[in-house]
């Protein structure tokens, strides 16, 4: 018995009794699938909202705190009378 025959015999064993497909399969699949879709949409929307909120918060903080302005020095005393 060579390899091809063995594989064909194994295939025949596997194809013997096909199980019956449950009649309510389609409805169940669509229900679960649309739930997965809705959930992923909701998560994506939430993440976008979070990103927008972070951008707004950063802008407001930057405008009020001016982090790019050099802070006045605290180590060197101001030079007067030179």
């Amino acid at each position, binding site marked *: 018995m060579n390899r091809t025959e063995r594989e064909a015999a194994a*295939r025949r064993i596997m194809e013997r009794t*096909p199980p019956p*497909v449950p009649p309510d399969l389609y409805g169940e*699949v669509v229900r679960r699938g649309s739930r997965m879709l809705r959930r992923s949409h909701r998560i994506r929307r939430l993440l976008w909202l979070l990103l927008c909120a972070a951008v707004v918060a950063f802008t407001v903080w930057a405008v009020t705190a001016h982090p790019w302005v050099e802070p006045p020095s605290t180590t060197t005393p101001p030079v007067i009378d030179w």
Partner: protein
Amino acid sequence: MRDRQASQGARRAREFEAFVAGAAGRLLHAATLLTAEAPDANPRARRLLTLALAHTYACWDRLRGEDPYDRARQYLALRFANSAWHQYGGPLSRGRPHPKSALAVLTPQERLIVVLRLYEGVAEEQTAALLGLPTDRVHAICDRATATLLHPPRKPGPRVMGAKVAPS
């Protein structure tokens, strides 16, 4: 705009229904072989199939010409592989192979590879890439499993793991 969306949704539903009608029988057979349940009492195989098809439904619009059957089969195989060790034959196995199943003499990994290679006809390289195994190993496992299948051992004892553990 709304009209176009509605008609697109209807077309999508029609296409998906046709896909399910065509693919469900074969995928359910493959799933039942994987879980080694009896053909007429296969709750785990049905669950696997439902999850795989629901996943395909969820990414139906993002397929871009890819074969949905291939996608569903990949999901089914990977889900089985990831849950196999604790559900279908690991040390804490919940379910034993049903004696009426065609592949009851094989271990879960052998079942997975035999079903993908022989029943579904996936190429050796693709199977290896899907499961993250070397091609030689897939070849060897497939050969060994075919031999076990054609000449099953006398006693149902010598399954490598999980056969003698009491069901929990």
